[in-house]
């Protein structure tokens, strides 16, 4: 008997929980921005779940989820409501979570992803609103070795959006791309920081395998504890391999929840389906149902900025390369900055598009990478950068000098023209001054001059470099080379 490995199709669906960046929490007036705050300092009777308290809906959070739904091509339910999801756990202040069960705010949308040049739509099943739980910190008493747990209620009641995809992804790479695109959109519309490492963007994955062309899905495994996009990718890849191995060995896949362990790069079983909870959902009696009419949706729609996909296509039309357009549109900050620089340039449209792209992806990106800051917080405004580019473009300064001036602008906050004038950086473009320097370099570099005269053409490059050094980059290398050749006869 020969074993034939069956070909399997991988089915992946993702559930993303993302915190909204509203000023206050979902159902109380506490500040939702507790980063850096001491434990249990952003709390009130409502988010502590004290006896007698009642929730009040944060209308900004509802606007954010509606905007998210619209950006993800979802239907917005004309009638939606909150439900109580019952389960006991010490991180749940009321013993139930206010969530949404059968009438989520958004449903039936899609998100376009591109993997290996292929475009694909991933369905969005639903987007619903709920409240986050408190944070548990598990500790061990150093003296007794006993474990104990601390509760930080700051996170309790912060607005949380759950975005559930259809099981439309077929590879770990697609899953990763889905998350990248989703995060990009959430950040573009400004509803969430969507940062996985910070814990405000969390992802659980459902993965199953089935023989190619099989009509039914295989047993579904849910993976938790993935703290980066890379972890999602690796956990899925591991799981696909694990399941395929089991199936090939004739074993059954158990429907279960497994946790990703970063250290050992594997998933481990957490609980099986038999222990699954009954959440006893029922409509939240403390909150009236929500109704969304067309006028409301129109108001939200008007506030949605141009989304990355549309912007990417527009940038291509400006004459940018695929790389430039996609890199510039990765974040809204960067794309905004880029466009501001472009519009401030006084050159023809196509040239402006290219120049602005070079700078935004060059020196500006370098600064952002080196400092770890967003482009939006760069001390050189788009208008000032445009002024600098303009100086290089009209020949006032050389490209080399332009880069130096940019660094000085970052450090000093001074304008380009001011720096160029004060530091005497204007281009030396011929005339007596440059000729004098060229002659001086020739007289000081006998060996190179000899090489050149002996027919070693490349020696002239060395001499150009010496002249550039002597002018501190203010000379046009092209002009220098011509002068050298002329002087050397």
């Amino acid at each position: 008997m020969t074993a034939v490995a069956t070909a399997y199709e991988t089915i992946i669906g993702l559930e993303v929980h993302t915190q909204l960046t509203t000023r206050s929490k979902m159902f109380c007036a506490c500040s939702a921005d507790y980063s850096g705050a001491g434990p249990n300092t952003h709390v009130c009777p409502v988010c502590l779940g004290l006896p007698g308290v009642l929730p009040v809906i944060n209308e900004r959070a509802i606007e954010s989820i509606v905007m998210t739904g619209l950006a993800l091509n979802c239907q917005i339910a004309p009638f939606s409501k909150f439900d109580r999801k019952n389960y006991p756990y010490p991180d749940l202040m009321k013993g139930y979570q206010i969530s949404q069960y059968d009438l989520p705010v958004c449903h039936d949308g899609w998100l376009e992803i591109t993997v290996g040049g292929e475009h694909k739509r991933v369905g969005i099943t639903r987007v619903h609103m709920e409240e986050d739980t408190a944070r548990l910190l598990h500790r061990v008493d150093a003296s007794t070795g006993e474990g104990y747990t601390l509760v930080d209620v700051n996170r309790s009641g912060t607005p949380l959006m759950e975005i559930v995809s259809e099981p439309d992804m077929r590879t770990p790479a697609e899953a990763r791309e889905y998350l990248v695109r989703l995060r990009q959109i959430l950040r573009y519309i400004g509803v969430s920081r969507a940062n996985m490492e910070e814990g405000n963007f969390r992802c659980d994955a459902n993965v199953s395998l089935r023989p190619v062309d099989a009509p039914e899905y295989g047993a579904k495994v849910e993976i938790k504890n993935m703290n980066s996009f890379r972890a999602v990718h690796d956990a899925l890849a591991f799981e696909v391999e694990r399941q395929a191995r089991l199936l090939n060995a004739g074993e059954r896949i158990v429907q279960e929840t497994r946790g990703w362990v970063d250290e050992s790069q594997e998933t481990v079983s957490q609980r099986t389906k038999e222990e699954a909870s009954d959440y006893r959902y029922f409509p939240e009696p403390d909150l009236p149902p929500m109704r969304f009419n067309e006028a409301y949706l129109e108001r939200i729609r008007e506030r949605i900025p141009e989304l990355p996909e549309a912007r990417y296509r527009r940038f291509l039309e400006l004459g940018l390369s695929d790389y430039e357009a996609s890199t510039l549109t990765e974040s809204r900050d960067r794309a905004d900055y880029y466009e501001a620089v472009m519009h401030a340039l006084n050159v023809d449209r196509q040239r402006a598009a290219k120049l602005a792209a070079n700078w935004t992806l060059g020196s500006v990106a370098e600064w952002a990478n080196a400092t770890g800051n967003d482009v939006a917080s760069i001390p050189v405004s788009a208008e000032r950068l445009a002024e600098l580019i303009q100086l290089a473009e009209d020949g006032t300064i050389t490209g080399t000098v332009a880069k130096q001036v940019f660094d000085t602008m970052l450090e000093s906050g001074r304008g380009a023209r001011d720096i160029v004038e004060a530091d005497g950086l204007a281009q030396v473009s011929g005339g007596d001054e440059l000729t004098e320097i060229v002659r001086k370099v020739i007289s000081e570099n006998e060996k190179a001059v000899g090489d050149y005269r002996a027919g070693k053409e490349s020696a002239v490059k060395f001499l150009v470099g010496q002249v550039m050094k002597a002018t501190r980059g203010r000379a046009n290398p092209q002009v220098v080379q011509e002068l050298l050749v002329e002087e050397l006869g």
Partner: protein
Amino acid sequence: MTAELWRLTAHEAHEGLRDRQFTSVELTESVLARIKSVEPRVNAFITQTAELAIEQAKEADAKYEAGAATPLTGIPVGVKDLIVTKGVRTTAGSKILENFVPPYDSHVYEQLRRAGAVMVGKTNMDEFAMGSSTEHSAFGSTRNPWDLDLVPGGSSGGSAAAVAAGECLVALGSDTGGSIRQPASLCGVAGMDPTYGRVSRYGIVAFGSSLDQVGPIGRDVEDLATMLDCIGGHDERDSTSNPEPMPDLRHYLGREIEGLRVGVPKEYFMQGMEPGVTTRITETLALLEDLGAVVDRELSLPSTEHALAVYYLIAPSEASANLARYDGVKYGYSYQDGSSMWENMETTRGHGFGPEVKRRIMIGTYALSAGYYDAYYKKAQQVRTLIHQEFQEAFKRYDVLVTPTTPNVAFPVGAKLDDPYQMYLNDIHTLPAAVAGLPALSIPCGDSDGLPVGVQLIGDFFQEGKVLQAAHALERGMPWANRLPQL
């Protein structure tokens, strides 16, 4: 005269205070002395706040001096112990909250304090308002001031008994299925359950969230109007609170009821009703006619019989979630000798809750469980809608509906404790209006062998004014008015 000031109603006391016949401190001291004398027998309070009361009375007197007094300024009130009071222990009648001192105030207590009312104590109640006799209290049962061997009704039995015994002039109770009207009826005082949404529930320890409503208990209708004027109105902290402005309810008092259309639903006169109750209600209907009302005794509300089942599915379902927070982790009673977190949480609840509360948590958990939800909770909500619609139809033809508040008068302590269903039947006449969210009140309409009988008036949504108007007219024509028990 100060010795007997506790006998006054709130509006009488207000007049005395306003005219400087006595001070709030004198009035409060009179009430505190009365508490001292009768409380050992009545047990209407879980926590007495005598010191605080004197302090608040002094502030009230200053308000009268400054000409800034309102009808409740300086009036001693009792506050049901599920109404959250900052700095004053709030137990909801449960061991699980025996040491809970809230860090915030409920909306209604804020309103009372703004008005300058004086709190003399937190009144006894069935644990988490689950009960009809105040026997399900972790702090001992309250006794009926008319006969100390009898129950005062419940769950606001402490508030009703305190008002009847003169331990406060007026009190706040809460009504989920009859918890204000039934004890008011059994204790011979007036009590009102306002329209759901009329009074903010912010700071009311929740039992059945879609049913709970705070309301007043007093010795007469005018005091009910005064109290409701004070605590009612929109509060943005309660999303179910009605945004409409409060009408001036006292404006409805003293008006004629000539031509008032009164419906008497047949279903409320069932077999096994105490004959004395039937007689008093019949007399009350005759009095209404004498006053010019048009009484229709042929009204039928066939869904009435389903209200009990609807109530005992919806309220426990909501309660099963509302009571989930009491796990000993954050506040209240906490068992800590277990070997695991789960054991501690479970034992906390096992020790902390009484048997009736556990029963209802079990019923509610069951009704919401996967596979049962449609048959129980969902079906109950559908029938609730029917009851609601039936009332709405009736209010196209009637201004108020009149029924007995309870089928029987007060019963002996312990008589129904072992038979939950018999206990539940006590609320059979108060449940339908609660399930529909309608305003309803009970006023005394005479006695049956010396024990108080109550008549219930039910109004249309947010028509508290009309209900108070009819009740006020009735009260003036009734022999009972303002009788106090011998204690």
